[in-house]
């Protein structure tokens, strides 16, 4: 177990290290560059070269990378040149990361609350109308581009019907105290219920759009897993002992069927980071995804570098925790020659 953890941590370091080098080289090979983005096309050659020097972009790439590394070691990831000029990349990350995390959290909660019961019911009544309907639904859920779903939700529920706000995290004029950066949680902690409700109101549509793919995946895994467990001998034993169906379902079926579902939930949370790029753009939601999209448009190297590295790091860590918890929950994996 310890060896495995150490190996995975090492892998994390390698992934982030290799990725940082690749991204660094890539981002600098991007056409345009931050100088053009900052000064526009009509700047004089003199101002251009001055800014290039100021930003250190005239030095060889390895020198630049080394400087980046040594500054990064002390927590300095550079200053944004495009997304929020003047702010440090780290500030932007800390401002926006809670927003995306909040969004991803609500998306995954929706996916779980709908996906698991539906998957369970579909498996219990295999071949019934609910089963077939939800299978079709989950297949369509995967086939619909996330941003299109976001558009439809926004257009119908926010613009046409006016039930939800169309953009942002919170209504501008609202007076809210910031504690954690998670707006809904802040509102609850400070007991500013209107602020909490307003933030939640802003979250519902983007979270709904973002949840379509995790919902489909969680539903299908739950269904397949429950079907697997229903076939097991211990379920038959429980039945022949005369246990009532609700007891069997709760103690034997559900508990055993949840293992693969837990894994999937973890992995889907990681994948949500990517889906957030599209959803946040549609709803002008000020999270990591929107900053990434803006960063690409405006060639904001420091912000892009930090945000992509963090996203990849979070993804790797989630994968690692999931794999570890998998081994912890299921003793069979441990005894069968250790975790992979």
């Amino acid at each position, binding site marked *: 177990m310890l060896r495995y953890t150490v190996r995975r941590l090492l892998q994390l370091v390698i992934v982030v290290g290799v990725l940082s080098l690749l991204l660094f080289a890539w981002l600098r090979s991007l056409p345009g560059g931050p100088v053009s983005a900052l000064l526009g096309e009509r700047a004089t050659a003199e101002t251009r070269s001055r800014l290039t020097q100021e930003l250190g972009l005239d030095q060889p790439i390895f020198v630049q990378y080394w400087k980046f590394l040594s500054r990064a070691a002390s927590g300095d990831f550079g200053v944004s040149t495009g997304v929020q000029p003047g702010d440090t990349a780290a500030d932007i990350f800390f401002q926006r990361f809670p927003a995306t995390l909040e969004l991803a959290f609500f998306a995954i909660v929706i996916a779980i609350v709908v996906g698991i019961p539906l998957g369970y019911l579909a498996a219990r009544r295999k071949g019934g109308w609910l089963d077939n309907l939800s299978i079709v639904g989950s297949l369509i859920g995967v*086939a619909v*581009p996330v941003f299109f779903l976001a558009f439809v939700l926004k257009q119908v529920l926010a613009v046409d019907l006016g039930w939800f706000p169309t953009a942002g995290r919170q209504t501008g004029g609202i007076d809210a105290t910031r504690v954690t950066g998670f707006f809904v949680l802040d509102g609850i902690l400070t007991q500013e219920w209107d602020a909490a409700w307003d933030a939640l109101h802003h979250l519902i549509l983007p979270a709904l759009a973002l949840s379509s793919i995790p919902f489909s995946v969680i539903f299908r895994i739950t269904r397949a897993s429950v079907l697997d467990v229903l076939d097991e001998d211990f379920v038959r034993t429980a039945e022949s002992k005369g246990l009532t169906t609700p007891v069997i379902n709760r103690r034997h079926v559900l508990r055993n069927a949840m293992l693969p579902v837990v894994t999937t939930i973890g992995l889907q949370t990681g994948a949500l980071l990517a889906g957030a790029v599209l959803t946040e753009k549609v709803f002008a939601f000020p999270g990591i995804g929107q900053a990434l999209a803006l960063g690409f448009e405006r060639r904001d190297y420091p912000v892009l570098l930090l945000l992509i590295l963090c996203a990849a790091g979070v*993804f790797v860590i989630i994968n690692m925790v999931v794999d570890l918890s*998998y081994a912890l929950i299921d003793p069979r994996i441990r005894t069968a020659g250790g975790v992979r």
Partner: protein
Amino acid sequence: MSTKTDKIDALAESAGKIGDDPGVSVAAAAWRRLRRNPVFITGAVIIAAFIVLAILSPWLAPHDPTVPMLGDQVVKAKNQIPEPQPGHPLGGDQVGRDLLSRILVGSQQTLLVGVLATLIGLTGGLILGTLAGAIGGWVDSFVMRAVDVMLSIPGLLLAVSIGALFAQPNVYTLIVAVAVVQIPVFARLLRGSMLAQRHSDHVLAARSLGVKQKAIVFRHMLPNSLGPVIVQSTLVLAIAIIEAAGLSFLGLGNPDDRTPEWGQMLGHAQNVIDSHPQLAFWPAGCIIVVALGFTLMGESLREALDPKSRR
């Protein structure tokens, strides 16, 4: 990485399997199951229709998709776009080109993006996976670590990073961005199926007959990996079309809209979606149906090949 990689590995293992009925080949047994599977039939019909449409679209399209023949009905300032009218059942687009013709002809580019991206991903993965699986040793470790690193980055994020690499996004940079993401998936799949076969009877028989390693890999192991590769390719086609649409939406697709493509039409429609939702709905609907078709086909193929996964 459990579920993502497990799924690939499970598929890879089916390469070494022998059919339930020894008298029938794996492919024949799979086909026998598929023939009666309504899911597969639905997917196959959708995809067949899509391919026929793509080939015949230049003749089917009522108008030239590049000519703004309804241009006089477009008023930019008032955000006016030609409504459906006789001769133009779906109306026109932002510059007055016939929408129906653009949808029809757009199927060609969408098919091209999907197929080319899948082929490039497949070729890259084929080379890496075969190297890793056939040579083993440090080549294997090196390739697989690289593959794990690539798999550990969310696909769309990787595609976006790659797409942003190019000075002028066009349809080929879009294809490359979508394809690179699929290389590690195919590599892992092929390596897995190579390993699954390494100790199988037919490879052992060939080896004991003194067949050279190269011939074993190319004549015996690779052809037997074909099944899982076809399954994965079908699923990747759906992913490629959806991801290409996502990249177009982020502005990393083809900016030149003279040759129509569904993802690009959808991306360009985002500014007028409030007033003219039909410009987004038609291409989006087409993307959804085609992606659904490939998914249905891929999933039922996977089931047919690996009876254990049948549910």
